[in-house]
């Protein structure tokens, strides 16, 4: 039982990484007043570029850089459409997501001809798990040693970076002067403008960070979690991250916990023990599909605010115009 729990928590952590990256990225964009439903596209694009660049250069780090690049490109397109051209932000996001869906498969097929997949990456070209110091030695310590060995140690570097991003995001948003401007831009852009700070510039800066994090979420999928890119790899994870961010009320730590909760569901749904446990309650024939759809259903339930109402930044989705 204890071992099962350790394994489940370990899996939860691994699964949560793309959610955490994307949710932090989403926080930056939305706190500045720009809607970001485009995390899905950035994740998908990031996953493809990371796998492709890592394969060509045989270096996971170049892959990561590539994914950041595509994330920034996508978020700048979004910024141009929604900040500069004051277009409909939701439309722009959906456009990016669908564009990414098409582009990744077209390029993957043209370059590799493997039905939308990229070639398997060698160990050097992906992020392998790293053992933290003294993991073996501490193993003998009851409980804490296990936790350290099984859960905390033995992940790829991106897992640690993702969880480091949470305090970093929290610090930038709530403690830095840039964060103050960012939040003010999302709540009351006119007031920001009267202090002589450019609303649009602040929003572009927020989107830059958003693109970096969005791209990284994809890199994790294709160069750490798996060792290749495959068509539609993100499978709605970008939207789930967005839901986690909303459930977390646009705050980094609560958003991280929401990500962990969703990941926990992904982690347990394939466990035979869970299957046995629910066998008595749900008919066996339906159980598999019930488990398969549970993360999506719970996303809907959480989003519906059955766990408390979420209040978005006030100026979200509104392009700024001085003339108003």
């Amino acid at each position, binding site marked *: 039982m204890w071992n099962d729990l350790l394994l489940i928590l370990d899996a939860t952590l691994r699964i949560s990484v793309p959610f955490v990256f994307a949710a932090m990225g989403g926080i930056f964009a939305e706190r500045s007043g720009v809607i970001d439903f485009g995390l899905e596209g950035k994740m998908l694009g990031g996953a493809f570029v990371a796998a492709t660049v890592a394969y060509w250069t045989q270096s996971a780090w170049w892959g990561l850089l590539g994914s950041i690049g595509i994330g920034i490109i996508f978020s700048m397109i979004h910024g141009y459409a929604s900040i500069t051209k004051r*277009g409909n932000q939701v439309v722009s996001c959906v456009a990016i997501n669908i*564009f990414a869906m098409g582009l990744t*498969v077209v390029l993957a097929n043209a370059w590799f001809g493997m039905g939308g997949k990229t070639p398997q990456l060698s160990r050097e070209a992906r992020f392998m798990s790293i053992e933290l110091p003294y993991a073996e030695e501490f193993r003998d310590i009851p409980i804490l040693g296990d936790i350290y060995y099984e859960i905390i140690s033995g992940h790829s570097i991106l897992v640690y970076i993702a969880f480091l991003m949470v305090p970093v995001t929290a610090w930038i948003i709530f403690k830095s002067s840039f964060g103050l401007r960012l939040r003010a831009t999302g709540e009351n852009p006119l007031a920001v403008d009267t202090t002589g700070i450019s609303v649009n510039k602040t929003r572009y800066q927020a989107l830059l960070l958003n693109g970096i994090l969005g791209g990284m979420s994809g890199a994790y999928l294709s160069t750490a979690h798996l060792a290749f890119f495959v068509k539609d790899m993100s499978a709605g994870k970008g*939207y789930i991250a967005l839901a986690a961010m909303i459930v977390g009320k646009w705050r980094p730590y609560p958003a991280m916990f929401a990500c962990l909760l969703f990941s926990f569901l992904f982690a347990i749904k394939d466990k035979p023990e869970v299957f046995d446990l629910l066998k008595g309650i749900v008919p066996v024939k339906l159980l598999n*599909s019930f488990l398969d759809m549970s993360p999506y259903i719970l996303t809907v339930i959480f989003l519906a*605010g059955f766990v408390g109402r979420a209040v978005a930044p006030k100026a979200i989705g509104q392009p700024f115009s001085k003339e108003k």
Partner: protein
Amino acid sequence: MNEGHANTLVVTLVTITNLLLAFLVSGIVIWVLGEDPWFALKTMLYGAFGYDEGLGYTLYYTTNFIFTGLAFAVGFHCGLFNIGAEGQAYIGGLGVGLVCLWLENWPLWLVFPLAVLASIVLGGLWGAIPGYLKAKRGSHEVVTTIMFNFIASVVMVNLLSHVLRPPKEMSPESREFGEGVWIPQMHEIFEWFGIEITQTPLNGTFIFALICLFLVWRFIWYTRWGYELRTVGTNETAAVYAGISVSKNIIIAMVIGGGLAGFVGINEIMGSSHRLMLNFQAGIGFTGIAVSLIGRNHPLGILLAALLFGILYQGGAELSFEVQAIDRHMVVLIQGLVILFAGALENLFRPQIEQFVKRLAT
């Protein structure tokens, strides 16, 4: 030239410019892949129109896109962004399939309205839940409808592989319906009039789609309900002030949208494959967004845009067959660009075009 004409001209020019921009970028992608964009264009057009079988397929795809385009447009008029036509078509199609399996010995004129009803009930339900959550709980419909697409997919995979699959078959499909409930194919309909055309999947649903276009047009612009719906979409506060229920209209718009999306099942399931199968709706729902946006959410525009995407689908299939390096997903990429340029960046060249029309008028 009066104001109305000038406006129409501006809108038309803006739409065409945006479309050309999307094609230009797509052409660049093809060029980057080392292929010849001109050749690609010619191949696509030939594939879509060059021979009557191609034309049949083009119109067959057009039928689907009319339904999902309308599904998106109805929501859009109510201020909603329904990107769940994919799941609504899937579940609505399930309703169509179940009716056909159940009543396969009944005459078509009885089964058809029941299938339409089943599609409206199930597809509508799949739209109504996100609609309800939006109206009552404020959950954004973009996230919930996407989640419902995934849920629909899980439901269908399980139903088809465990419940509806005949025991001895391997592939996750239902059995074939009795021939009595198949919608006549276009070549059969033409035969009644003594005209011979090539056999394609194009079937009578195309006519039903045209009727739907007309009905939606009447509904949105000439009924009280349509008026209420548009009022909610244009100005929620004004709607509340006028005594119009916002929640009710959001839910109605989602039910209508879901039902319309479900009609994809009539074209695909009842009109062509004659059995329930996996992923018959794949990509059609998302295409509806581009169709509606480029058609400016108006039934006539949707008809033209659906035809355009029918051409892109059929021509794209031809192209990927001719040129191995260009995948069928090229059309998904073009969709994304069309949504970007016609939806989010619609004002990119609008000032210049307005200037141009103004100069033209004087």
